């Protein structure tokens, strides 16, 4: 995917490009949300879209998240493919009713007669020094809602590919964007963006033999760093990037865990009732006799997201991951 001529692109740029390409290819794709038009969004992801496609295709809405998602439902009923931007994770909550009671259930409710191909973009997670309500990891809510796909990129390449796939999907997708990776760079070339894979596949980002780190979104770079650091302690860690929480790629995940026999789930969301519980439980159900130790979890604490000056104590860091790896009952191997 890397070409010699490519100059580094950021995840923010890749997302913007995905929107642009989708809009150019398909006239039914409409972008809507607060400040997405003239301003280009507070993270500038939609920069230039209103200019290129007009305000009717990239629309500054009134300030009302339920209204945004609710009108998107109606637009989708009429055959459009709305891409909704929620300004920050916590500001998606006012639209929860529309998401859970309608968006997720529409196809099922109508016995397949109608689908709602809506993409809801949610910038999520911490590590950006955001004040209260600007750093939530809200994926647990979406994951527990049948009828939604929940997808999150961790690399610039995936930001493009997964967003294209999400928009192309005939089903609603909650597209979680790890905001602290918006400025992460790669040699990905926007001119040759690569194939668009369907959503639902995890990928092994680093192979290893000692144990598997199962992670996604903002925690992928932390896990990769931890895997590097672990070498010094004699552990060769495999790192799996889940990419899609729903559907969940049991195959890739279980293949890895069966191989290594040990696993740690890492995410920023709070632990209790977070996605890690599901992941640990299903891996254990499927790989029990391959496990040398229980699947452990390194997650945010079970607390409201902390103020900026304390967030580093909350977020899963390299040390905490290594501590968990150390607790994977190595002595049992003898």
């Amino acid at each position, binding site marked *: 995917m890397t070409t010699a001529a490519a100059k580094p692109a950021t995840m923010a740029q890749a997302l913007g490009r995905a929107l642009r390409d989708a809009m150019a290819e398909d006239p039914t794709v409409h972008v809507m949300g607060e400040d997405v038009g003239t301003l280009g969004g507070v993270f500038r992801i939609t920069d230039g879209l209103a200019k290129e496609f007009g305000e009717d295709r990239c629309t500054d809405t009134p300030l009302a998240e339920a209204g945004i998602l609710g009108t998107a439902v*109606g637009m989708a009923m009429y055959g459009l493919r709305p891409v909704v931007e929620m300004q920050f994770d916590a500001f998606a909550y006012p639209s929860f009713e529309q998401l859970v009671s309608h968006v997720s259930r529409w196809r099922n409710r109508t016995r397949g007669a109608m689908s709602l191909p809506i993409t809801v973009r949610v910038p999520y997670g911490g590590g950006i020094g955001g004040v209260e309500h600007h750093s939530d990891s809200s994926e647990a809510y979406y994951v527990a809602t049948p009828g939604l796909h929940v997808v999150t990129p961790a690399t610039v390449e995936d930001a493009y590919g997964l967003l294209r796939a999400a928009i192309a999907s005939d089903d609603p997708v909650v597209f979680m964007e790890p905001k602290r990776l918006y400025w992460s760079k790669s040699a990905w070339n926007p001119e040759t963006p690569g194939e668009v894979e369907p959503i639902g596949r995890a990928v092994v980002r680093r192979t290893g033999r000692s144990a598997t780190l199962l992670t996604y979104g903002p925690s992928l770079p932390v896990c990769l760093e931890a895997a590097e650091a672990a070498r010094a302690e004699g552990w060769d860690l495999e790192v799996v990037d889940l990419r899609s929480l729903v559907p969940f790629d049991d195959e890739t995940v279980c293949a890895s865990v069966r191989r290594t026999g040990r696993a740690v789930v890492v995410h920023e969301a709070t632990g209790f009732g977070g996605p890690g519980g599901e992941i640990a439980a299903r891996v254990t159900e499927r790989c029990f006799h391959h496990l040398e130790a229980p699947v452990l979890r390194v997650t945010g604490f079970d607390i409201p997201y902390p103020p900026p000056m304390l967030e580093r104590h909350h977020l899963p860091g390299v040390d905490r991951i290594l501590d968990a790896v150390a607790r994977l009952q190595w002595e049992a191997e003898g």
Partner: protein
Amino acid sequence: MKRNSPTVLEQRGAYRPTPPPAWQPRTDPGPLLPEAEPYRVLGTEAARKADPALLRRLYAQLVRGRRYNAQATALTKQGRLAVYPSTTGQEACEIAAADVLEEQDWLFPSYRDTLAAVARGLDPVEALTLLRGDWHTGYDPREHRIAPLSTPLATQLPHAVGLAHAARLRGDDVVALAMVGDGGTSEGDFHEALNFAAVWQAPVVFLVQNNGFAISVPLEKQTAAPSLAHKGVGYGMPGRLVDGNDVAAVHEVLTEAVRRARSGGGPTLVEALTYRIEAHTNADDATRYREEDEVEVWREHDPIALLERELTERGLLDDEGRQAAKDAAETMAAELRARMNADPVLDPMDLFQHVFAEQTGQLREQAAQLRAELDAAAEDQQHDEPGGTGR
């Protein structure tokens, strides 16, 4: 970088920040305010102008609607419907709402409005599917352009706005008419929908059936407004107040609102004053919260009786016409009764078919589990409730 390509909105004297010395209201609020008295036609001068053919059509529909309500309520007693929220006494609104729409228009009913859907042409059995407990929606919404019945109150209103807006963006001649109750106007979604509609000048008509109650909660605990129609001006759309039991009046006001929407004039809020004659649903006991004499007052103001009086006085309806309407209604009811008496055939495997366009691995696993359970149960005749709550 500036806002490019001013929208329709921006062109027509928008509410811009202007220092108060130079301040001008965006639009004159006067015409947006409702009439002081609910608009009426039947029994007034205005009735003379009403089209006799229309009145006769509405009459037949009202009679049929009343019979439909009675039949559906009867079906709950026979256990053929899980629940039925009746529109007895509200037929004028239901019928008019359906009648004012063109074929390409969309109707967005609330959970109570199966009658409007039926009046629009939906098969009553399909309309009652949800309330029968068979499946969540019994019809393809696109076929009759009727959105699924919306149980969460007021949540259908933004859908109507979005659909109407999308149609307008595409250059299609489509109006959406969205129905909601007086209680539903208190929900945030009501507010957001009306605001989006006005800002986008979407071709949508909001019909509030103010029937005096939200289950047991009377209007005075729901709002302190002079009328619900007074909410319109706060969004910059006209609010109209109409006698909801006067089918000619409701029809006229809605027709005007639909015409306005269709011609690019934007949304209208219509409040129809009516009354829920029956309890909230068959499961409700209305004597717990209202006096029978209040109901009596409204029975006197019955939508069918009002129209019948007018038609009779004008010589547009005789005993024969009355009987014909009645007979047609009976035929519909008999057919409905017969068809609802047949047990629907359901396939449990449908549970997994429509969650996603393409079944996920997780759902495939679960479908296989249920399939196996069903097969095992079929083999073993003793067990007739496989996977059920009891054995």
